[in-house]
C-alpha cells in the first residue's frame, strides 16, 4: 500500500481523485505559502477544469457575473461580465480562514448544487482558532495539513492517467458492502455529518478507478483514511461507546437490488479503524476542543471579522467629497443616470457621462460597537459551590438579554493553579450553557493568572473592534501566585500588578465581591484597576445580572 502517512502524497492523491470525480467537492490544504504548497498547486494543471483564483473579499459580481460597469461606461453600451461560478471550474481560494460567512454560504450553495465545481481552499490560519469555515470543510472530501512537510523531501508519488481513470469510473465493480461499513465507521469516529461517509464511498470508487483495481480492502482503507481521519471527534473504543451493537434490520431495498449484498465480502472493521486511526492527528483532543469553541464566532466569520461590523448602512445623502467622507459612487451614478439623455441634448459636444455636483452622494453608516463582557469567574474551592452557581445564572441571564444590546459574552475561569478560557466571545446561548454546565469547581485562587487571561481576551476583542469589559466575580482571597506557588502575599501582589497592567492597557473592568464579608484586598484591586467595586453578598443570579447591567449603564 502506498505511503498514506506522507501528507504530501495524500494531498497529491486527493487532487488526482478530484480530477477523477469532481463530485468529491474539493480539498482544504492547511499550510502557509511556501514551496511545498506551490509545488502542489502546480499539480492542479492535471485537473480537467479551468482554474480560477478567489480571495475572501470577492464580490457577488465577480462570482455570478453581472454588469461590467467600467466597460459599460467606456463603450456606452451594456457589457456583461462572466462570473467565476458560471462554468464548472477549480476554485482556488487563498486565505480561506478569512472567508466571510456570506462567501461561505455562496460557495456552500454552489458545491451543494453539484455543478462540477471543485474548491481548493488554502487555509493559512496561524493557530487552531483560525481556520477554514466548518461549513466548507464539511462539504469537501479532503483535508491535508502540509505545514510540517519539508520541501526537500517532497514526493507526490507517480502521475497516473486521470482521463483514463475518469472513463473507468462508472464501470468500477464494488466488491464490498460499503454502505454499511462506511456508516458504521463514521459513527465509530463520532462523525455526525452524513456527508462524510458519502465522500468515503465516492473516494473509494474514484481510487479504484485511479489505481485500476477492484474496490478491495486496500482501496477502502485508503478512502477511509483520506476522508474520515480529519473529521474524527472521538477515538473508537473510548469508554462511552457500545461497539458491538446489532445493526437494525435493513430497510427494504430500492433500485439497486439487495441480492448482490450476499455475495459481497465483509472487510474486518478493525482494519478500517486502524487505517483511519493511523492518520489521526496526535493532538486530536485539543483540536476537537478548539473546533467546538470556534463555532462561537459564527460560521467562519472568525478572524475575518476584523474591525467593527460596518453597522447598518444608512441611505447615502447629497454631500461634497472631501474631509473624510466617502463618495458613494454607485449612488452618485444612479442619481446622474436618469438625466444622461437630457444633459447630453443640452451639451451636444460633450462625450461621456454628464455628472453634476448635485449628483454626488456620500456614504453614511450607523456604526455601533459590539460590546463584549468577559466574565472572569472564580471557580476555586472557597467560591465554588454557591458563588459559581449564581455566577452561571447571572451570565445566562445577561446573555439571554444580550441580543437587544448587541452584547457578546466570553467566559474565563480560574481555579487550581491556572486560568482557562472556557468560552471565546459568543452570542450563542446554547454554547454558553454547555460550557457553564461543564465548569468544575475547586482548588486554589490564582487571581492574577485569571486576570491575565481575561486581559488577553479583552485585548484580542478590542483588536476585532469590540468594546470589552472585564467582569470579575470572586470572593477575593488570592492565594496562588503567577508562578503557581501557594504564596498568599505574593499572590495578592501579583494580582495587583496584573490589575495595574490592565488599567494601563485601558481595559474596562468591574469587580463584584461575592464573599459573605467584603474583602478589603478586592477593593484595593478594584482601585488599582480603576474599576467600580460592588459588594454583593448572597446575591442571586437576577440581582447579579441587574447589578452588572446598572454598572455598565443601561
Amino acid at each position, binding site marked *: 500500500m502506498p505511503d498514506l502517512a506522507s501528507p504530501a502524497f495524500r494531498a497529491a492523491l486527493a487532487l488526482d481523485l478530484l480530477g477523477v470525480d469532481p463530485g468529491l467537492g474539493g480539498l482544504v490544504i492547511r499550510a502557509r505559502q511556501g514551496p511545498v504548497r506551490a509545488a502542489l498547486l502546480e499539480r492542479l494543471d492535471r485537473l480537467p477544469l479551468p482554474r480560477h483564483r478567489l480571495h475572501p473579499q470577492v464580490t457577488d459580481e465577480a462570482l455570478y457575473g453581472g454588469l461590467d460597469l467600467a466597460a459599460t461606461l467606456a463603450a456606452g453600451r451594456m457589457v456583461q461580465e462572466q462570473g467565476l461560478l458560471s462554468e464548472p471550474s477549480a476554485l482556488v481560494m487563498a486565505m480561506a480562514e478569512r472567508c466571510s460567512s456570506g462567501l461561505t*454560504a455562496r460557495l456552500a450553495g454552489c458545491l451543494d448544487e453539484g455543478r462540477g465545481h471543485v474548491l481548493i481552499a488554502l487555509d493559512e490560519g496561524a493557530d487552531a482558532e483560525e481556520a477554514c469555515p466548518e461549513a466548507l470543510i464539511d462539504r469537501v472530501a479532503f483535508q491535508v495539513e502540509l505545514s510540517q512537510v519539508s520541501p526537500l523531501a517532497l514526493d507526490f508519488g507517480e502521475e497516473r492517467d486521470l482521463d483514463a481513470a475518469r472513463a473507468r469510473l462508472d464501470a468500477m465493480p464494488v466488491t464490498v458492502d460499503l*454502505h454499511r461499513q462506511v456508516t458504521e465507521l463514521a*459513527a465509530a469516529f463520532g462523525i455526525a455529518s452524513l456527508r*462524510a461517509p458519502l465522500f468515503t464511498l465516492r473516494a473509494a470508487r474514484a481510487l479504484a478507478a485511479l489505481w485500476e483495481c477492484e474496490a478491495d480492502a486496500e482501496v477502502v482503507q485508503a478512502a477511509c483514511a483520506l476522508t474520515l481521519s480529519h473529521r474524527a471527534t472521538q477515538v473508537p473504543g473510548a469508554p462511552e461507546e457500545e461497539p458491538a451493537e446489532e*445493526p437494525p434490520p435493513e430497510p427494504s431495498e430500492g433500485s439497486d437490488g439487495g441480492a448482490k449484498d450476499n455475495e459481497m465480502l465483509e472487510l474486518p472493521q478493525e482494519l478500517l479503524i486502524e487505517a483511519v486511526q493511523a492518520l489521526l492527528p496526535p493532538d486530536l483532543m485539543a483540536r476537537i476542543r478548539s473546533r467546538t469553541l470556534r463555532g462561537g464566532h459564527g*460560521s467562519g*466569520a472568525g478572524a475575518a471579522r476584523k474591525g467593527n461590523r460596518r453597522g447598518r448602512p444608512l441611505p447615502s445623502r447629497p454631500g461634497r467629497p472631501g474631509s473624510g467622507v466617502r463618495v458613494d459612487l454607485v449612488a452618485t451614478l444612479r442619481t446622474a443616470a436618469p438625466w444622461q439623455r437630457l444633459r447630453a441634448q443640452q451639451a451636444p459636444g460633450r462625450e461621456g457621462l454628464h455628472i453634476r455636483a448635485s449628483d454626488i452622494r456620500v456614504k453614511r453608516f450607523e456604526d455601533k460597537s459590539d460590546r463584549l463582557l468577559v466574565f472572569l469567574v472564580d471557580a476555586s474551592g472557597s467560591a465554588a459551590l454557591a458563588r459559581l452557581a449564581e455566577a452561571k445564572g447571572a451570565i445566562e*441571564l445577561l446573555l439571554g438579554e444580550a441580543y437587544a444590546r448587541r452584547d457578546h459574552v466570553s467566559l474565563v475561569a480560574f481555579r487550581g493553579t491556572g486560568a482557562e478560557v472556557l468560552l471565546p466571545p459568543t452570542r*450563542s*446561548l446554547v454554547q454558553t450553557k454547555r460550557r457553564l454546565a461543564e465548569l468544575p469547581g475547586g482548588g486554589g485562587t490564582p487571581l492574577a493568572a485569571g486576570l491575565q487571561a481575561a486581559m488577553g481576551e479583552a485585548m484580542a476583542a478590542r483588536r476585532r473592534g469590540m468594546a470589552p469589559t472585564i467582569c470579575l466575580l470572586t470572593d477575593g482571597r488570592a492565594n496562588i501566585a503567577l508562578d503557581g506557588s501557594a504564596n498568599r502575599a505574593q499572590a495578592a501582589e501579583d494580582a495587583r500588578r496584573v490589575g495595574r497592567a490592565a488599567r494601563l492597557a485601558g481595559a474596562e473592568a468591574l469587580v463584584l465581591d461575592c464573599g459573605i464579608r467584603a474583602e478589603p484586598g478586592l477593593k484595593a484591586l478594584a482601585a488599582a484597576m480603576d474599576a467600580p467595586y460592588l459588594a454583593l453578598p448572597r446575591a442571586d443570579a437576577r440581582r447579579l445580572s441587574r447589578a452588572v447591567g446598572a454598572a455598565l449603564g443601561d
Partner: protein
Amino acid sequence: MKAPFPFSAIVGQDEMKDALILTAIDPSIGGVLVFGDRGTGKSTAVRALAALLPPIRGVKGCPVNSARVEDVPDWAGLETKEVVEMPTPVVDLPLGVTEDRVTGALDIEAALTRGEKRFEPGLLARANRGYLYIDEVNLLEDHVVDLLLDVAASGENLVEREGLSVRHPARFVLVGSGNPEEGELRPQLLDRFGLSVEVSSPRELGPRIEVLKRRDAYDRDHAAFMLRWQAEDAAIRERILAGRRALTELETAPGTIEDIARLCLALGADGLRGELTLLKAARAYAAWRDDTAVVRTHVRAVAQVALRHRLRRDPLDEAGSGTRVQRIVEDVLA
C-alpha cells in the same frame, strides 16, 4: 442541472417534512424555522420541496408572479396577457446579500445605457406567492433581517429610493435554517416564523445507512432513482392539493379553540400570534390527514412545532423549550 433530491426519498426527519407540508397546504401559517446541525438534510428538504410543490398559475414573465393580468404592476412593462402554469417559486436569499438585491432598486444598466428610469425587482418580488429560503438565517445581517420582518408583516414591498416609488406584493413563506451553536435569532424574527422544528442527524445506524444508500443511488444512477421516487412525490403532491381543498370545508370541533387558548395561556406565549398559528397549523394538519373536523388530537400533534419558539426564554431552564411545551400540553390537554 440535475433535478433535486426527491422529497419523499428523504429518510426520517418527519417533523421537518410535516412542517413544510403544512405550510404548503396553508401558506398563511407563516413559514418554518429549521434549526439543527450540519449535514442533516435541511437544505436538501427545502430544495426538494421546490420540486414537489404543485405548480401555480401566473402571468407569463411577470416579475412578481401575479395570478391575474390586472395584478401585474405597471412598472413591469409587460406586453403579454398569457397565463401559464409555472413552478412555485423557491428563492434563495444568501447571506451577505445587499439591501438592493433584496428589495430591488433602480436598474442601473437601463439607466446608464438607455437613460431609462426603471425598477429592477429584487428577491422579494421573485419570491411572491412562493417560498423564500434563508440558509444560516441566524447569521443574517441585522438590517436585512429588519427589512424582511417589515415585508413579511405587511405582505408588501415598498421601495422608496433614487427617485423611485414602487410598491409590489411580496407574500411568501419564509423558510429559515441555521445552527443554534453559531448564534441566536432575535426573538422578533423567531416569532415571525409560524412553525419551528429541530433536526439532528439520525443516531441509529439503520437510517444512516439508508440515507447513504439513497444518496449514493441518486448520485450514481440518477434517472432510475428519480423514476423510483416519482410516484411517491406525486402522491404527496396530490395529498397537498386535496388538503388545500379540504381546508375550506373543515369544521372546528367545539372546544378546540378553547383548548388552544388555554394552552397558550398556560405557556405564557407572547402575543396572539401563537394562538392563531396553532389553530391554522391544526387545521392544516387535519386537512392533511383528511379528517372532517379539527379536534384536540390535531392541536396536540402540532403544538410543539407551533409554539416551541414562542416561549419567553428562560435562560435558567435546563430543559429545551420543546420539552416544556410537551409537558404543558400533557397537563392542559390531559
